[in-house]
């Protein structure tokens, strides 16, 4: 059997993993067209759809019932506290965690974390994880045949400062293939885990790099159906962050909305 014939057989068995990129594009276009036609009737969507079939793994893992409205109470009005004794300064530099220098493009990613009213999220935990420059994760389930870099784990932690600023030094991750459909590739991204001023602001997301040609093809990025909303995940190149003969710089600010109880005086004081 020729390769093409094998592909046809697999496609005919209609395993979702073997949809073509064109099939996925057609599905994504239909959702996007429906959204833009009906956008006048609703407020702009700011979050990803939980039910987004072009991302195959969401099909059996999205709630089918509406999220239930909850007025935050007691514990939900507070966030866990993290301290400098448990997050070492060096954890924010992903290029110095091993004996040698990792391969790839050294970059700084920095920005400010605020709540929806623009108040800084102070001394709060930011965790990042990512693939290396070749698009390979150290995770044992990652089977992509790209080299592992002995000098790069791809895990960072930092606490925001008094103004809500964070800063990581790392290596620009590569795009990588995944099995959502045939010839599926994720745009290069860095995963971010964020805590806010309240439990209700907990957020996990992905930061992307400007101008990535894979944006239009990627069902995870496109699951945020509003174009303005998904662009909020794209960092900007910032030459004032770039350092002479050392690294390039990206800026990405993060807004964590939700609840925003009245702030008590002692929390405002420095």
């Amino acid at each position: 059997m020729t390769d093409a014939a094998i592909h046809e057989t697999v496609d005919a068995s209609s395993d979702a993993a073997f949809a073509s990129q064109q099939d996925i594009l057609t599905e994504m276009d239909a959702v996007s067209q429906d959204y833009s036609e009906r956008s006048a009737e609703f407020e702009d969507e700011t979050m990803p759809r939980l039910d987004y079939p072009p991302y195959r793994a969401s099909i059996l893992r999205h709630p089918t019932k509406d999220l239930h409205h909850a007025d935050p109470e007691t514990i939900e009005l507070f966030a866990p506290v993290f301290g400098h004794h448990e997050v070492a300064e060096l954890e924010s530099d992903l290029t110095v965690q091993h004996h040698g220098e990792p391969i790839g493009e050294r970059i700084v990613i920095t920005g400010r974390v605020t709540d929806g009213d623009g108040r800084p999220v102070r001394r709060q935990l930011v965790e990042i994880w990512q693939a290396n420059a070749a698009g390979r994760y150290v995770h044992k389930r990652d089977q992509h045949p790209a080299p592992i870099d002995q000098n790069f784990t791809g895990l960072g932690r930092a606490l925001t400062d008094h103004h809500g600023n964070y800063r990581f030094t790392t290596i620009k991750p590569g795009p990588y293939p995944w099995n959502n459909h045939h010839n599926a590739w994720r745009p290069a991204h860095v995963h971010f885990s964020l805590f806010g001023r309240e439990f209700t602001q907990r957020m996990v997301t992905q930061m992307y790099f400007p101008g990535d040609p894979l944006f239009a093809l990627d069902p995870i990025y496109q699951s945020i159906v509003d174009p303005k909303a998904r662009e909020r995940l794209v960092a900007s190149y910032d030459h004032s962050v770039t350092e002479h003969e050392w690294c390039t710089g990206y800026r990405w600010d993060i807004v964590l909305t939700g609840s925003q109880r009245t702030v008590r005086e002692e929390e405002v004081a420095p």
Partner: protein
Amino acid sequence: MSLLVATPGQTAGPFFGFALPYDGDSDLVRPDHPHAVRLHGTVLDGHGSPVPDALLEIWQADADGNISREPGSLRRDGDTFTGWGRAATDDAGHFSFTTVEPGPADDGSAPFFAMTILARGVLNRLFTRIYVPGTAGLATDALLTSVPEDRRGTLIARRDRDGLVFDVILQGERETVFLRYPGT
């Protein structure tokens, strides 16, 4: 209404296992703590299959109902109760925390664990509450009474020999009630 628009969430994907879990993440108290209980369960998808790549977090008051303002969840000293923990599911979709049951708040409302659910295939973090069976205030709790009676049970743990069992059912007939807070 917020001044600023929220940054969207995205799925945690399949590869957080080397990054987010850490030693002691799910042990809010030592197993030999006099009031230690196990809070455990299984995460299931719409076919009833276990979800082996989920990450759950809990945030809770202590046994007296006090909310901890102490750091130390990432490097536990064994004595400080920080109120926060994290547990990845295993290959059978099972997770387990070692903790204490949260005590009632000052206003006497029913205590609960606040829970966040992350997983490959879950495009934005999910929130829920885990109420403790048999505690005062359950019958009059504002959130529970706002949930249709036939789904209320999905928010209340059940007891077993070791403590509390709470399954997270992402989809289907017995789907867990997931929450949306104002402004999110």
